[in-house]
């Protein structure tokens, strides 16, 4: 099967270019992000300042649309429980 047969959109090309701009030498991977994202979500919900580990989660979420989608869903659940 071919990849989705549609033209590349401005949003797609822009998001990859944005990813390149945000790329750093050392990054968390998705598994590391998953391990810490709960703590990051609770920190964000409590409007607390982020430490270095939490900042690296934030950077990964800016780069990774999948982890960001899951983080946003987690925030929805936590906010519903407040």
């Amino acid at each position, binding site marked *: *099967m*071919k*990849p*989705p047969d*549609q*033209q*590349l*959109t*401005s949003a*797609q*090309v*822009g*998001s*990859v*270019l*944005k*990813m*390149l*701009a*945000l*790329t750093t*030498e050392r*990054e968390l*991977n*998705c*598994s590391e992000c*998953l*391990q*810490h*994202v*709960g*703590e990051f*979500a*609770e920190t964000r919900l409590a409007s607390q300042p982020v430490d270095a580990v939490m900042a690296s989660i934030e950077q990964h979420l800016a780069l*990774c*649309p*999948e982890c960001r*989608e*899951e983080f946003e*869903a*987690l925030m*929805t*659940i*936590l906010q*519903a429980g407040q």
Partner: protein
Amino acid sequence: MTPTEINWPVALRATDSGEQAAAMRALRDVLHHGLRIALSSRGDVSEAHLEDFVQESLIRILDRLDQFQGRSKFTTWAQAIALNTAFTELRRKRWQDVSLDALLADGERLAEPGMMAEDVLGAQEDRQHLVAVLREAIEHELTPKQRAAILGELREMPFDQIVELLGTSRSAAYKMLHDARRALKQRLQAAGITGTDIQNAFNL
């Protein structure tokens, strides 16, 4: 007992099968409730899907109990795993039939005029220049597998699907993708393109 009063790691490891079963039931309810909230706006998730996601999540959570460090509430940590389980499966269904060859062929078409939607090329010269540099860098700076990984990313393919296509481990695929992004970034920098240029050209 409410979810906040349960000592989850202890209860889920309890040797008393009754206590462990009760904890499992309570966790199942917590995850089911959370996934229902998180996925309520999707039309492609049935009650049967929810049940499957919860079952799979419970297995993963029990396998990883030792990794829970107590830096968040247990239920938050567990919900994150459940969401990852559910979204990974939903993404996999969408991309399951795409092959590596098809993705590489997609890359060969990058230079074709019809490949980019009008809104990419538009009238802005700076945007056209950015896209031209990106195309050239993808074609010349990357190995075939790096190119496939980046093209997958460009097509918004889930990372797990990229891993499967490349036939490698998650960590090897992540390194491949990271190396590819670094190579492309260096090429953009060498062409004098900055993050601000990208943000301005694409209204990010």
